């Protein structure tokens, strides 16, 4: 899997089933396809017949302290069996606590304790899914007072769990603005050999801080950061995410083409 794909969302389903529009692959939000019957499994099969697929999840609760939800993981495994994804990803965060699910990507402390905890859970999930998991850095609005940097934390988890990484460039930028983290430094420190995918998305500005809203075009500073990422990771697959206020497909395709152009430039410079 390489090149620039898009997150396939419901409003674009018919258009993309009718014409591939030059989209080389699509990322599916697995949580939208967990239904055991009815139309949803048929839609999955149609998508997988037309496009190479990756699966992106939001419900594994990788960093949580509740027991792993094996029914959820089994449902994800069923989706994977139907779509033969190139990889399956989820987020380096927690999303549930004491049996309550928050449907948000809640930040973990960048601590050694959290590294060991989340790596062990990723290991169990990898065993269950019988594949390496791809784990994404998240945007955050709070940072627990803990000793590691974000880059150190991500790298340590990846090493201890022997998982792969999804580098969300927009999240790096959001965290730079919100938390004062150094996005360029994070790019330098990321273990490149583990990065399977890059995410790009739009954010929303609210006064002095940014919200990872996935509701707009990729911003200029994030494109600039992506150019740096592409120079370091020129052959890594890139996905454009757009989840809210979803625009006409042409807008998404325009973002996809721009990312592809930046990636080509990066490859040319590397060569």
């Amino acid at each position, binding site marked *: 899997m390489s090149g620039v794909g898009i997150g396939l969302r419901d409003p674009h389903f018919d258009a993309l089933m009718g014409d591939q529009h030059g989209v080389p692959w699509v990322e599916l939000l697995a*949580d939208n396809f967990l239904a055991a019957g009815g*139309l949803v499994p048929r839609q999955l099969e149609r998508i997988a017949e037309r496009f190479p697929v990756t699966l992106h999840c939001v419900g594994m609760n990788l960093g949580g302290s509740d027991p792993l939800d094996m029914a959820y993981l089994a449902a994800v495994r069923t989706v994977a069996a139907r779509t033969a994804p190139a990889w399956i990803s989820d987020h380096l965060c927690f999303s549930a606590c004491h049996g309550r699910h928050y*449907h948000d990507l809640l930040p973990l402390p960048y601590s050694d*304790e959290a590294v060991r*905890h989340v790596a062990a859970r990723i290991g169990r999930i990898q065993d269950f899914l019988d594949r390496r998991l791809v784990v994404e850095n998240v945007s955050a609005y*709070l940072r*627990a*007072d803990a000793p590691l940097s974000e880059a150190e934390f991500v790298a340590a988890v990846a090493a201890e769990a022997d998982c792969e990484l999804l580098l969300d460039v927009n999240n790096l930028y959001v965290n730079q603005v919100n938390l004062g983290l150094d996005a360029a430094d994070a790019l330098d420190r990321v273990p490149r050999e583990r990065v399977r995918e890059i995410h790009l998305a739009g954010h929303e500005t609210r006064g002095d801080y940014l919200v990872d809203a996935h509701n707009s075009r990729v911003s200029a500073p994030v494109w600039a950061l992506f150019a740096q990422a592409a120079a370091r990771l020129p052959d890594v697959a890139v996905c454009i995410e757009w989840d809210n206020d979803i625009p006409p497909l042409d807008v998404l395709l325009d973002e996809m083409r721009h990312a592809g152009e930046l990636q080509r430039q990066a490859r040319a410079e590397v060569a």
Partner: protein
Amino acid sequence: MTALRQWQAALAGMIDGGPGDAVCAAARPVPGLAADTACAVYRSASRGARARALDDVYPVCRRLLGEASFAGLVREFVRREPSTGPDLNRFGDGFAAFVAGVVREHAAFAGLPWLADLVALEWACHRIYYAADDPPLDLDRLGNADATQLLPRPAAALAWLRSAWPVHQIHAAHRGDGEPPALEIVPGAWCLVIERVDFAARVQVVDAGLWALLDACGQHGAGRRDLADLVGDPALDSGRLGELVARRWLGAVELRQHAV
């Protein structure tokens, strides 16, 4: 409790409406984004995700009440009702009971005695859209099994409810985007079955006898009834079990598992 668990409990408690003091105390101060503002972002995002899920499940209720009134109901429901699983499509089954309480307690809703039943109907339509497919019913497989060992069960993609109001008519009238037809809402007794046809929910009115038989087949847990019990119940018209099969409303007839 470890530092990791303390952090998670503090953040979760804050989102649930508790004070953010513990989160703020454990967070590293950053310029430009105060910890209490950050807490509000997380609280809003989590509750917003659940609220948007309900927007999608209850379009008719939303249209009938208007955006502001529906949003107010949802906001209060989301504040009270946690989500207990990762699949957001399963969040909201308690909304009908919540709305019933609101209708009972608040004079502003007194003119909508059918509202909770309408919400239950919308939930049924939503649930069966995502329900599992049953394999074809194979009665031959049961052979000569004793009727006390046979447990009929309705199809997974089937729901049934009773209402003293014509909620199926209200639902049909307000489902589309156009101007709804005039509807006289008078009380009565309706037995409804919601089935999945061509991947979409279809609501039917059935007679009370057929509905009662279906309902008896659909009891759970200790109330689950075997075929002998159903056939022997004089209150049920068990001769119509074949009709349930013909309509594909029975998803399976399972063999009782003996406890060892």
